Each structure stands twice: as structure tokens, then as C-alpha cells.
């Protein structure tokens, strides 16, 4: 999905039993602009990274909003069982449920349900994380590479 100048929305959808051998088992977002995903369910999706959603956006002014989303039983082979965020835009996660998501466990994985790689401002509010399994950070893996000398 590429909509760098658009205001996009995905509403009232169910994404289940999808598989990607690379990134984004259900949705791969590449610079989607302003995107809002509301009242959707991501169930039993699989991918290498970002089993439900892989999101890449470097524009600080762009915003991804996830509202009232259910992420259940998604599995990543490496990172981001539910969501992989790569970039520095703004992300708002509110009223979401992350349940029973997991990472395949081996020595190469970092894991976590939410994998945040150099994210911009991120807000997670009124959300529930329950029975998730990861390698480093069962729920959230937050990585920055800029603050070492």
C-alpha cells in the first residue's frame, strides 16, 4: 500500500490465516501517508516480520492510527508478531487488544509483539497485552541506533 499523499483508512475488516514469507502477513504498508485502521481483526497471520502489519514510513509528519484493533494468535518467524514499525513517523495505538501472539524462538530472533525500529513518536494507550510471547520484550521491543557515540 503506497499512498504518500493520501489520507487512507481501513475499517471493519478481518484479516485471518494469511502468510507472507517476508514482511507483512496481512498488510504491508510502505509510506502510506496518513492511515487510520479502525475496528479490524488480525487473526492467525504469519510472516517473517510483522505478521499482521508491517509499516514503513520515514516522514515525521505522517501518522498511523490503530484504533480498536484485535491482534490474536499471530506468529512471526523473526520480529513483530503483530506489528513491525520501521521508521520515524508518528504512531497512535489506542483501545487495541494484543493477545496470544508469539515469535518462533531461536537464537536469531529479537521477537516481541510490537517491534519498533527507530520509531518516531509513539503513543500506546488504553490497550491490552495478554499472553504474548517474545524473545526480548514480550510485548514491545524498542530499538534505536542513534544514541551511541
Amino acid at each position, binding site marked *: 500500500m503506497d499512498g504518500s499523499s493520501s489520507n487512507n483508512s481501513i475499517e471493519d475488516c478481518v484479516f485471518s490465516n494469511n502468510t507472507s514469507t517476508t514482511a507483512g502477513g496481512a498488510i504491508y504498508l510502505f509510506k502510506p501517508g496518513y492511515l487510520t485502521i479502525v475496528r479490524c481483526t488480525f487473526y492467525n497471520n504469519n510472516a517473517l516480520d510483522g505478521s499482521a502489519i508491517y509499516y514503513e514510513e520515514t516522514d*515525521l509528519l505522517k501518522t498511523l492510527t490503530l484504533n480498536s484493533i484485535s491482534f490474536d494468535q499471530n506468529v512471526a518467524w523473526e520480529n513483530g508478531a503483530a506489528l513491525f514499525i520501521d521508521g*520515524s513517523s508518528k504512531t497512535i495505538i489506542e483501545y487495541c487488544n494484543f493477545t496470544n501472539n508469539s515469535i518462533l*524462538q531461536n537464537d536469531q530472533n529479537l*521477537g*516481541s509483539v510490537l517491534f519498533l525500529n*527507530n*520509531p*518516531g*513518536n*509513539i*503513543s*500506546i*494507550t*488504553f*490497550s*491490552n*497485552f*495478554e*499472553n*504474548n*510471547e*517474545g*524473545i*526480548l*520484550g*514480550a*510485548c*514491545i*521491543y*524498542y*530499538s*534505536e*541506533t*542513534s*544514541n*551511541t*557515540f
Partner: protein
Amino acid sequence: MKAFSERAFITQKQVILFKNLKLKILDDNAFMNLTKNSFKNNSALLGGGVIYFKNKLLAESPYETNIFTENTAYFANDFFTFPVRLQVTDNQSFYSWINKSTYSLSVTPAITETSLYFSVVDYYGQTIKSMNGRFFLFIYFIKSILAILLWNLNPFISLMYKIV
């Protein structure tokens, strides 16, 4: 990382407080807000039963408003690993960076120059990595408003540190 001295008006001859020396972390404008979430029965094979920070600088602590219940990890903290923070050391004493954008340094009038050394430390103050070189801080004592105005016309001390 960009280190620079902020304008500071020093008018007293006693022990003074030098404020507003700022250290700006380039590309670290990210703010993470966690508020009113529930984390229950999550487990990490290694560290961070809920959140694992890698190289995240210490920021505000929004964790008080979240609920953590029976999360587990093999090492580190069951709830979250602590972000790292910047530490600065000068010629006279030891300082830690509490607020990542503001730093206070106490000096005496006799001192006109000092050096600051920066390093990234973990939550317990153990050094993760030190920055090569040092940041020279020149301290001016200004006695009048005119001097302050003249001083304002001069460029203030600026040094750039590129971090990778």
C-alpha cells in the same frame, strides 16, 4: 549528537549555578507514551517481560499509569528493561543526565574553563560506551546588562559530535 553551550548570564561572584547547557541528541526526537494499558501474563524468553529497550535514552516515565501483572522474563526485569541514559562528567565532580535536554553545572568564579565528558550508561550507571574527546566549556562572568547585550552578539560555543 550535538553539544553546545546555551546563553548563560552569570552575574554573581559567589558559587554560581550555570544552567541551560543543553545536549541535543540528533535523531532521538522520539517520544514514547504508554498510558493506561494492561500487560498481563506475557513472557520473554530472554529479557524484558513486557518491554525491552535497546539504546533508548531515558525519557519521561509514563509507566505509573499502566498495570503490570504476572509478566516474566529469563533475565533483566520482568516488566521492562530500563532505557539507557547519558552521563556527563566534568573536571570537578560527577553528574548524571536526568533530563536529557537540560543539565546544571555548579562552578566557582575562579574557573573559566572546564571539560565535559559524555558517555552512555545503563540504568545503574555502568558505562556502555564513552564518547571520544571532550567538550570544552568556557565560562564567562558578566557584570552588566551592556556586557550581556554585547555577549549576545557573539556566537556561542558550539561543537558537533556525530554519533552512529
